[in-house]
C-alpha cells in the first residue's frame, strides 16, 4: 500500500479522497498529494532505500503508487557526475551534473510518467494521453506500450514531423490538431473533463508531478545523504523546480538528511521567461507570455506552477535567471566539450544560467552545486547543426595534411 492520505488543495487546504481529480471544487486551486508521514517514518531508512532497486522506485515509500503496481522501465538512478572541467571554467570548485538525459526515453519525463501511468493502471483507466511537442509524448507513448494501454498524443499540426517520431514508433495514436497552441490546450482540457482517459498532466497531475521528487532524493543520496548548497533547474511549468524543493524538505523532515539549506535557482530561456520576469519584478504573480524560444521543451507561456516557483525561490533564498537565446547553443557546446555530455536545449539553458549565476556571485566558488540536465541532445540536433563543421578531404594523404593544416590555421586565427 502507498502512504498517501489524501489530495489537498494548495490554495485553500480542502481535502479530497485519492481519486483522479486535479482541481479543488471550491476554489479551483491545484490539488497536491498528501502523505501519512508518520507511517512513512516508521518504514523508511537510509538502509531500506539503499537495498532497493537501482531505479526511482527505491523511493516508493514517498511516491503515490502501490509498490506492486509500479510501472518499472528502469527509470532513474541516473549518474551524478563530478564536473571538474566545467567547474574550472566557471570558477566552481564543487560542481556536479545530474545527467537525467539517460532515462529510457532520454528525458526526466520518464519519472513523472512512470508514476502517472502506474496510477492510471491503479485507477483502471485503459487510455493514457497527453498534449506534447516532444519529450513528454515519447515518454507517455513508451509507458503506454509497456502498460498495454491505448495511448493518445495531441499536438498542433504545424509541428515538425521529426518531433513526433519518438512517440509514433511506440504505437501511440498521434492526433495532429489544426489549431494554435492555445486551442490545443483548450481542447485537451475539455477532453480530460469529458472522457475517461488518464491525461498524465491534467487529471493525473497531482500524482504525475510527484515523480519529480525522485530527482531530489537521488542527488541527496548520491552526495552521501546531504542536500546540495545550490541547484540549477530548468523552468517550464515550474513543477520540477517546486518538487525538487519538496523532495529535499521531505528528506529533512524524515531525518534522512540534516538540512535542506539548498538555494533553488530556476533557469528559463529569455524568449519564454515569465517566472524570471515575476522574480525580477518582485511579485509572486506570474504573467503569461507567448513563447518565442529555441528551447522548445521549456516553451510554456502560462506555467501552472509559476506562483509556487516564486514561493520556492523566496523560501530557499534562490533566484531566477534567464539565458539569452543566443547562449543556449553555447551552453550545449560548453557541457559537451568539457564533460562529454550532450544535452538538448533545456540543458543549454541550465548551463548558460549556471554561468551567469557563478559570474554574479549568486553561486559561490565553494558551493556544492548541482546542475540538472533533463534531456538528451539527440532530441534537438537541428539547433547544433551550424556549429558542427567537419574537415573535408580526399582520401589522399597529402590532401588530408593540407586540409588539416588549413583548419588548424583557421581555428588559431579565430581563437586569436
Amino acid at each position, binding site marked *: 500500500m502507498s502512504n498517501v492520505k489524501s489530495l489537498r488543495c494548495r*490554495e485553500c487546504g480542502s481535502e479530497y479522497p485519492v481519486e483522479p481529480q*486535479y*482541481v479543488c471544487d*471550491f*476554489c*479551483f*486551486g*491545484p490539488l497536491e498529494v498528501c502523505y501519512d508521514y508518520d507511517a512513512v517514518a516508521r518504514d523508511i531508512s537510509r538502509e531500506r532505500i539503499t537495498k532497493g532497486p537501482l531505479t526511482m522506485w527505491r523511493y516508493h515509500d514517498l511516491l503515490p503508487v502501490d509498490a506492486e503496481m509500479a510501472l518499472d522501465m528502469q527509470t532513474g538512478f541516473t549518474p551524478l557526475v563530478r564536473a571538474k572541467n566545467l567547474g574550472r571554467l566557471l570558477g566552481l570548485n564543487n560542481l556536479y551534473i545530474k545527467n537525467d538525459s539517460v532515462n529510457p526515453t532520454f528525458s526526466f*519525463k520518464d519519472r513523472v510518467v512512470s508514476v502517472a501511468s502506474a496510477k492510471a493502471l491503479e485507477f483502471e483507466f485503459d487510455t493514457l494521453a*497527453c*498534449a*506534447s*511537442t*516532444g*519529450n*513528454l509524448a515519447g515518454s507517455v507513448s513508451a509507458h503506454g506500450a509497456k502498460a498495454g494501454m491505448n495511448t493518445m498524443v*495531441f*499536438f*498542433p499540426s504545424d509541428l515538425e514531423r521529426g518531433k513526433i517520431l519518438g512517440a509514433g514508433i511506440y504505437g501511440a495514436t498521434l492526433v495532429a490538431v489544426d489549431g494554435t*497552441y*492555445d486551442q*490545443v*490546450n*483548450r481542447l*485537451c*482540457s475539455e477532453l480530460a473533463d469529458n472522457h475517461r482517459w488518464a*491525461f498524465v*498532466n*491534467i487529471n493525473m*497531475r497531482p500524482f504525475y508531478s510527484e515523480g519529480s521528487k525522485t530527482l531530489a532524493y537521488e542527488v541527496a543520496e548520491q552526495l552521501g545523504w546531504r542536500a546540495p548548497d545550490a541547484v540549477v533547474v530548468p523552468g*517550464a*511549468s515550474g513543477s520540477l523546480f517546486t518538487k525538487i524543493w519538496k523532495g529535499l524538505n521531505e528528506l529533512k523532515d524524515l531525518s534522512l538528511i540534516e538540512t535542506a539549506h539548498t538555494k533553488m535557482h530556476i533557469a528559463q530561456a529569455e524568449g519564454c521567461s515569465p517566472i524570471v520576469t515575476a522574480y525580477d519584478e518582485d*511579485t509572486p*504573480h506570474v*504573467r*503569461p507570455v507567448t513563447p518565442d524560444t529555441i528551447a*522548445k*521543451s*521549456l*516553451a*510554456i*507561456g*502560462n*506555467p*501552472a*506552477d*509559476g506562483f509556487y516557483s516564486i514561493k520556492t525561490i523566496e523560501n530557499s533564498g534562490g533566484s531566477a535567471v534567464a539565458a539569452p537565446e543566443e547562449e543556449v547553443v553555447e551552453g550545449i557546446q560548453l557541457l559537451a566539450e568539457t564533460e562529454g555530455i550532450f544535452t538538448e536545449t*533545456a540543458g543549454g539553458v541550465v548551463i548558460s544560467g549556471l554561468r551567469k549565476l557563478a559570474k554574479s556571485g549568486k553561486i559561490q566558488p565553494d558551493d556544492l552545486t548541482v546542475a540538472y540536465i533533463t534531456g538528451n541532445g539527440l532530441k534537438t540536433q537541428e539547433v547544433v547543426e551550424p556549429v558542427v563543421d567537419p574537415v573535408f578531404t580526399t582520401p589522399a594523404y597529402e590532401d588530408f595534411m593540407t586540409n588539416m593544416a588549413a583548419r588548424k590555421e583557421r581555428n588559431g586565427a579565430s581563437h586569436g
Partner: protein
Amino acid sequence: MVRVMARRRVRFTFPEQLITEPLIYNLGRKFEIVTNIRRANVQERVGWVVLELEGDEDEIERGLEWMIAAGVRVDPITGDLIEG
C-alpha cells in the same frame, strides 16, 4: 429544442489598461452566461480572475471570443497543458 448547458472553468488575465474595465459584468450582460468567480488577484499593473462560466456551449464560446477580442488572455485554470 434541447439546449446543452455547459460549464467551463477558465482564467482571465487582464493587461494593465483593462484592469479597471467592468469586463466580467459586460460578459454576463452581453451573453447569456452566468459568471461565478472563485479566486482573483488584482493589482496596479496586472489582474487575474479564476472563474466558472455556465451557459449554452456556443454562447460560452462566443463570450470567450469577445473577451479575447477585448484584449483579455483566456487560459485553462491548469496553466498550459502542452508540454515539451
